[in-house]
């Protein structure tokens, strides 16, 4: 039962991810964004299969519900008709290929570090309490650094979008 769902969600994630960047039918940026939403939702399904309900819920809440809505908002406000007609550039293709190779190498290294089947079996239900404890004790420094990073980004955006005082 779980294996069926795993293959279902994994296939959906990969297929939708592919359609985000190389949709053969439509080059419409809104369509790409919607497929990215589907990718995120399928990923959340994979998290559920790992019993990480908290991560799954936050994945949908933050990425599908907030970040992607803002993406869509921006895509709709900017007129991206030109984007639909643009063809691939050679340099961009080469850059993309390089990125894929680097990510594949990284993934291989990560898989080698933690061989299959040695991780602890998933808990009955991932508890938010345990996650919160870890975040505020063991991973406090990275957590705080991330929040400062977000603050910097926010201040930067406000500075950029502020109209010059005359």
């Amino acid at each position, binding site marked *: *039962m779980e294996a069926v769902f795993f293959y279902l969600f994994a296939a959906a994630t990969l297929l939708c991810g592919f359609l985000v960047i190389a949709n053969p039918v439509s080059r419409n940026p*809104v369509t790409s964004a*919607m497929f990215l*939403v589907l990718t995120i939702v399928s990923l959340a399904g994979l998290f559920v299969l790992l019993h990480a*309900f*908290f991560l799954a*819920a*936050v994945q*949908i*809440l933050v990425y*599908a*519900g*907030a970040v992607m*809505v*803002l993406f*869509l*908002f921006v895509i*709709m*406000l900017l007129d991206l008709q030109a984007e639909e007609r643009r063809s691939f550039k050679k340099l961009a293709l080469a850059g993309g290929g390089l990125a894929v190779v680097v990510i594949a190498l990284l993934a291989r290294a990560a898989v080698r570090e933690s061989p299959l089947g040695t991780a602890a079996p998933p808990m009955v*239900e*991932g*508890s*938010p309490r345990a996650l919160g404890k870890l975040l505020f004790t063991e991973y406090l420094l990275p957590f705080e650094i991330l929040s400062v990073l977000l603050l910097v980004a926010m201040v930067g955006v406000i500075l950029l979008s502020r109209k010059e005082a005359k």
Partner: protein
Amino acid sequence: MAWFNQLDPTSQFVLLSAAKVVPVAMILLGLVAYTVLAERKICAAMQDRIGPNRAGPFGIWQPISDAVKAFFKEDFTPDHVRKVYFWLAPAIVMIPALLTIAVIPFGSQLGQQKMVIADLNVGVLYTFGIVSLGVYGIVLAGYAANSKYPFMGGIRASAQMISYEIAMGMSVIPVFLMVGDLNLSRVVGSQAGTVAWLPVLPNWTVFQSPMLTLSFAIFLVAAFAETNRLPFDLPEAEQELAGGYNIEYSSIKFALFFMGEYANMIAASAMMVTLFFGGWTLPLFGLDAPATTLFGGLLHIGIFVAKVLVMLVIFIWVRWMWPRFRYDQLMDLGWKRMLPVALANIVVTAAWLWLRA
């Protein structure tokens, strides 16, 4: 029930879940239809009119005739629309509203079964996640129509719903700080009995402390904004946008947007009842403990539905009493007033809990 006990646990779980999902969905859709009728009747009373009274006594068959009309009207697809999104958008509006109900405990127990479809540990996060997907329906409807006014409605909806989602999410954090759990069944369980400072009032979250009352006030305003109801119905402001995101829709597709709004109202009401008004509990005749008899279980479901109906009447009442906000006022209220107040509320609640500990 011998055949049932022979099944493996997975099949039992699937069958029991289906046995809960089907009646809940039917009752929800029935409630949607009759909330529309209630809205028309109440607004008529407020404006000194009679309201729908032709179909059956007091117009009680009106929702059925409305549905038949919606199905048989011409389903017109204008030439200039983006077809795929035009067909998808009404469904995307309806689905999240139905999914939200899954984690809400609508009763205590019937026999051995807990009356909640999915008793998740992260129940409230699930709700917010699903609610945040609701905006896609409206945004895509605006985009699919491929004309100016619907598009503006869609853009307004996305900005409005993101803004108020943040205030809404922040407003419930004090509740969970107090309860110490994200599971909605346990939130309801913590509201049994009478409140400590005045033993006449029930121990509902909204009465427990001033911080939580403030939480409820913010949540209520945000719920109006999230469901696109007056005074925040800017995505479909008739006077400015000629109807907003749903202009190009007709027949049952339009009806789906309409039903989606009401289903969202019911989901928001159920959420408010669960978080702030004790869910299925009532501090009378020992009704705040899980039921042991079949009658008690049904009574708890009745109490929950009655509380939801009261919240729905408040939704309707506000709609017909208030003018619409201007767009800049809407954004000011969300970002400059409610968000800082909600953040301060979290800090104050946390500090109070820390002092008390």
